[in-house]
């Protein structure tokens, strides 16, 4: 008997479904960053707003990258529904805390997919995911550094203004 399912699609049902969940997660991150950009803009933190706009765009690119991979491998990529985006924040600092938390959650979710790929020896998808792991190094670094600005500069006086001004200076340039 021919193995029709394998001929049609490289991905197993489980991995395909996990990748679709990740597509949703990336879409949610993109929307969450957009909400953060909006909050920062309306509260006078122009540079941070730019920072979150860029982050949102990056998340969108991640989403599309996985979306195309699922399609290229013969699976069906599902355009996700995005709901429950937090639009209000109690403080400037809380925005960055949420951003770091979101990145940690994305890393964890990618690790979960990779663990499942190893379990079923899907090395093709693991190789694809490696790009994302490298990206997460940068994403988490940036989010952590941004939050550290609050401790280094301090929020008193013109502190928040200084923090906002320096957010876009954060660069991750480690080799590899």
């Amino acid at each position, binding site marked *: *008997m*021919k*193995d*029709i*399912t*394998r*001929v*049609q*699609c490289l991905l197993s*049902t489980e991995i395909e479904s996990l990748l679709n969940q990740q597509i949703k997660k990336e879409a949610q991150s993109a929307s969450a960053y957009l909400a953060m950009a909006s909050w920062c803009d309306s509260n006078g933190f122009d540079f941070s707003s730019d920072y979150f706009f860029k982050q949102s765009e990056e998340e969108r690119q991640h989403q599309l990258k996985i979306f195309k991979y699922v399609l290229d491998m013969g699976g*069906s990529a599902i355009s996700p529904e995005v709901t429950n985006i937090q639009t209000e924040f109690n403080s400037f600092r809380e925005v960055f805390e949420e951003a770091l938390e979101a990145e940690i959650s994305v890393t964890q979710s990618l690790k979960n997919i990779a663990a499942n790929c190893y379990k079923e020896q899907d090395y093709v998808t693991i190789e694809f995911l490696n790009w994302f792991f490298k990206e997460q190094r940068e994403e988490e670094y940036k989010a952590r550094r941004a939050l550290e600005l609050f401790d280094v500069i301090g929020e008193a006086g013109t502190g928040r203004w200084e923090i906002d001004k320096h957010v876009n200076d954060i660069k991750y340039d480690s080799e590899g």
Partner: protein
Amino acid sequence: MQNVITAAPSVEFVEVFQTLRGSVFQSDKENCWYIDFVGKLARFDYRSIMKLRKAIYAIDIEALLLNSEISPDLEIVFICACDHCYVLTLLEIIDFKQLLEGTFVMLELNRIIHDRVYRLSI
């Protein structure tokens, strides 16, 4: 999977899985499956059988069982871009789910056999 039946001279089916209420056959020639259930034989290609599985698995059987509202005990399963539509009672849904679960286990087993036996041999 050993039973090979011939429905028409040109079409050869291999039985994938069978329960008391239905059967699934595969046609290697047409790259598709034929599902014999509730008195009808329907043809499904890869995309549509995946959609069928998703639709059937998505039905919350427990919720239907606990539903105390007076409503017809029927579920309509319609698959987009597919010629077939099923109108199933609760018991038929359970049977259909069982049939599909068994089918996908056998297809998975078939994949493992192909991976381990045929695809690695030189």
